[in-house]
């Protein structure tokens, strides 16, 4: 069962039980819906972006422990960061879960708890759904900017 402890670390179980920033945001500057059709996980990410900074982020959704905890921890880690920084974190996170090299740096902080997921390839998408959704929301915002 030691393998499972690597996957279901205490931080993940805690964020699954008590997800942070889990509410519907009024006045969000952009939102996006993420859906994993294979397993039915759904997540909606709300962003309030001001001057390129993620001032507020929240989510609503329904998913497994990995999906819920990943979304919750993501909201904590990108709050106050610039859109570019958040995208950088996504790349790092994605690299940690799917990359071959073990070169991920210390920047991931708490997000490092998801390292164990890479041993469970079918669960990688559970951990990355929130990030893809965040990315879509930020892209949506960019589009808004370019059309203005």
């Amino acid at each position: 069962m030691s393998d499972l402890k690597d996957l279901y670390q205490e931080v993940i179980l805690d964020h699954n039980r008590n997800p942070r920033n889990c509410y519907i945001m009024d006045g969000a500057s952009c939102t996006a819906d993420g859906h994993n059709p294979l397993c039915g996980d759904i997540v909606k990410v709300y962003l309030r972006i001001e001057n390129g900074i993620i001032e507020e982020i929240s989510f609503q959704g329904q998913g497994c422990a990995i999906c819920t905890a990943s979304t919750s921890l993501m909201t904590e880690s990108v709050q106050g960061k610039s859109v570019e920084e958040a995208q950088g974190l996504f790349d790092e996170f994605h690299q940690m879960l799917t990359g071959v090299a073990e070169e991920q740096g210390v920047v991931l902080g708490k997000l490092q708890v998801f390292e164990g997921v890479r041993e469970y390839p079918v669960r990688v998408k559970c951990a990355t759904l929130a990030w893809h959704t965040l990315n879509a929301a930020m892209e949506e915002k960019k589009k808004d900017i370019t059309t203005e």
Partner: protein
Amino acid sequence: MNISAGAATGLDIEKIRTDFPALHQEVHGRPLVYLDNAATTQKPRAVIDAVRSFYEHDCSNVHRGVHALSQRATVAFESSRTAIKTFLGARDSREIVFTRSTTEAVNLVAHSFVRPRLNPGDEVLITEMEHHSNIVPWQLLCDEKDATLRVVPMNDDGELILEQLEEMISERTRIVSVVHVSNALGTVNPVEEIIRLAHDKGVPVLIDGAQAVPHMKVDVSALDCDFYAFSSHKAYGPTGIGALYGKRQHLLEMTPYQSGGDMILSVTFDRTTFNEPPHRFEAGTPNIEGAIGLAKALQYIEMIGIDAVQAHEHSLLAHAKEAILEVPGVRLIGAPQHRAGALSFVMEGIHPHDIGTILDQEGVAVRAGHHCAQPIMLHYHLSATVRASFGLYNRVDEIDALIKGLHSVREVFG
């Protein structure tokens, strides 16, 4: 623990298990406990050998060669059709059409039987309990023809509400298409009665038998259904092949499904004459080894005895149903009076995918998800369930392994 579940039903499970090579392996250091039979079953040695033997000795195309190998392949392929006819209780081998799957069989009926007779305002009747494969083809067809897809509801026990079904069959209904055994809930539907109700109003019936054929005696002549679809791989045969039973008079009236070689009598650039059924519906080189493997699988089930299989699986289900409820927080989904093959459940506060991953670490293979039956999930306000599904080779102590695994799940999640 008791491993002789078959004793009561006369099956020698240990001997049967020696016929299935894939069962004898370890997964994550634990003996494999395979409880995902509703997704696909493992294959007996006889099936694997039959497929290999075809490629080693008789590999050739069918219906077109004068040489020895082609003749042997054709005989083997057509004998498989006869074996299916006999297994399903059909009257004529020409009533058996080879398809890729149950899904393709449903699509074939939708395209070649219903489509030409479906007018704007007509109705197709299905049920809330259907697999997506018995929903989506009808949705597409109804959209195209401006027809209406009507859905018979089920109750919270996971049983169809027959009174409503009867009321919903109207003079506009062109087909009733209903699942024999629910893949997500295990419910056995009273298809005899449904067929009778539909026929009383002159409406033809298609039965999706994917989850019925491996678990119970199916006799299409006794049922008097118009069409019956099933897949090989859920009944111990190879993947990529299934069959459609269709009443001869229907098949004769039906237009081609796909077109190309083998389904024609003559082709000129002006005109093509189509072959007779069933070949009219089998364009292209078929899955020859699949058909041969499928016949072997049906022969294997007959050798064990489908009634004995049913009794054995029934005792497994009864044990599982009781044992699983002893795990704190477990709730069974649906409580149908008649159940076959599968059991769906959820655990309080723990997502089915987490349960599936943890069980896998214990060597226990189950399905976690919506089982391609999202309307059923919607009925119970769930996004997913865990499904344990049984086959003729499962033992009572494998249910105990499942239960032990569920206790591990609770440990991990505290």
